[in-house]
């Protein structure tokens, strides 16, 4: 039972100090969770702490690979609006986010 941090992590450090099990560590190219230490916060908190503070949608996954914070859930930007803005920026010659 463990969560996983994937490459969309922006290395903001927010999750590391809030983990009750010291399971999160700084690594290159991004932070990682030690799966032997992670308990998904069961017994400590109602919600997984790392996923409760992480500002990046999709950066933390559960065991099944499902994002704890799916697209649109943190920014409030509807995914179709996001896609449209990206397409528009690209059409202007800008690089997408």
């Amino acid at each position: 039972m463990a969560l996983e941090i994937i490459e969309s992590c922006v290395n903001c450090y927010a999750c590391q100090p809030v983990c009750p099990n010291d399971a999160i560590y700084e690594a290159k190219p991004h932070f990682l969770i030690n799966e032997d230490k992670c308990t998904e916060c069961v017994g400590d908190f109602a919600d997984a702490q790392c996923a409760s503070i992480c500002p990046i949608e999709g950066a933390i996954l559960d065991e099944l690979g499902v994002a704890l914070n799916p697209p649109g859930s943190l920014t409030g930007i509807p995914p179709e609006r996001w896609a449209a803005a990206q397409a528009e920026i690209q059409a202007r010659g800008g690089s997408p986010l």
Partner: protein
Amino acid sequence: MDLPIYQEEAAPKSGGCSAGSCGSTDDQLGHLSDDIRKKVEDHPCYSEEAHHYFARMHVAVAPACNIQCHYCNRKYDCANESRPGVVSEVMTPDQAVKKTMAVAATIPQMTVLGIAGPGDPLANPERTFETFRQLSEKAPDIKLCVSTNGLALPAAVEELSKHNIDHVTITINCIDPDVGAQIYPWIYWENKRIYGREGAAILIEQQQKGLEMLKEKGILVKVNSVLIPGVNDQHLKEVSKVVKAKGAFLHNVMPLIAEAEHGTFYGVMGQRSPSPAELKELQDACEGDMNMMRHCRQCRADAVGLLGEDRGAEFTLDKIEQMDIDYDKAMEFRAEVRAGIQAELDAKRAEKAKVVPLEDSPRGRPVLMAVAAKGAVINVHFGHAKEFMVYEATYQGARFVGHRKTDSYCAGDETCGDGDSILDKTIKSLEGCEVVLCSKIGYEPWGNLEAAGIQPNGEHAMEPIEEAVMAVWNEMLAAGKLDAPVEAKKRA
């Protein structure tokens, strides 16, 4: 949540002052103790005068944040304290201390070290306080400051009061949770992510509590607000009354900068930025006549140097490693340089105090003038100006009222369509100004400016800004261009 709304007491007006930059003794500061006024007067971020002489820097030691703002995208630095779309390299406290000491040894005008991000300093208390602790010990002559969203502030006040903290800046965008729900999608609080109105209400409560606690401890508090048209524009007037009543010595209103490229909620959803006129209206309403601080320009969180310049490239971690510095000598040298600057400032103030305003001198109307300058004299070519400083000239003197950016920070969709040339955009950004002062100007922009009703003027190159502004104003007055005298605006 109930927040008492206090009516601000009108400060009694004393005699006017004839020269510019009288702000530090302006009535608006009458409520400040001498001690605080002194701090403010020589502060590069607050005093319009001091910022030409003293330098400041920020270090990025605080990456984490505990809230989300709709004008921020956490791929980048905090959009409030630095420019959106900027990524600064996060340093450890040891690296930050080293960098600060190296900068202070090289730029002796360095007086203020700030921690503003890239996240929220108080959401990273260990990193922030470790930096402060070391610096208070190794360079006690450097003032420390910190900017925060306020959520973790009440818990940090005790610790803050132990360090050499000069002032704290709190970003307060609202005092009404319904407004807050449109600005903050969530906060992280007591081990939970709390969304919407409920989260905003907690944030507001903590900000107000933190402000009161700092005031109680005698720590200087400045409040920053981001002006978001249609969301908090009118509400900010109420915010201003409340925070000033609670003891904030300054309320600084900054424009929202929102572009789709920044990937922020506001940018992607098409929320517009305020126009220069809207911003000025709110600044006038919230900041009152306070003759200072409008030079604040959302400097980059990792910028180094005098306001308006960035010498950060000279102080990369590799370069610092190779510097050989005698820290004690450096501190002595700083003390000398500062004493020199102080003497110069004091002399200038004494000079100004001597000029007695003529009660019956002609009173033309106020005129806004844009100035292309770096530092205290007019020394920038019109075409090279990345921003203009705007001064308001009245019979009482010249006062700084704000910046207008010219390059990528245009005022928003309506004012700069795709077809506009850079020159057109620049001219639009000068809306409301009647004169533009620069060291030199080309033939084409001269004609275009005139056509737009703005008089270019290159006659005062290398002259001190305020003197030049007043010379032009007096010429306009003599030429009868400023008739229809307007009663000097008295503001309560």
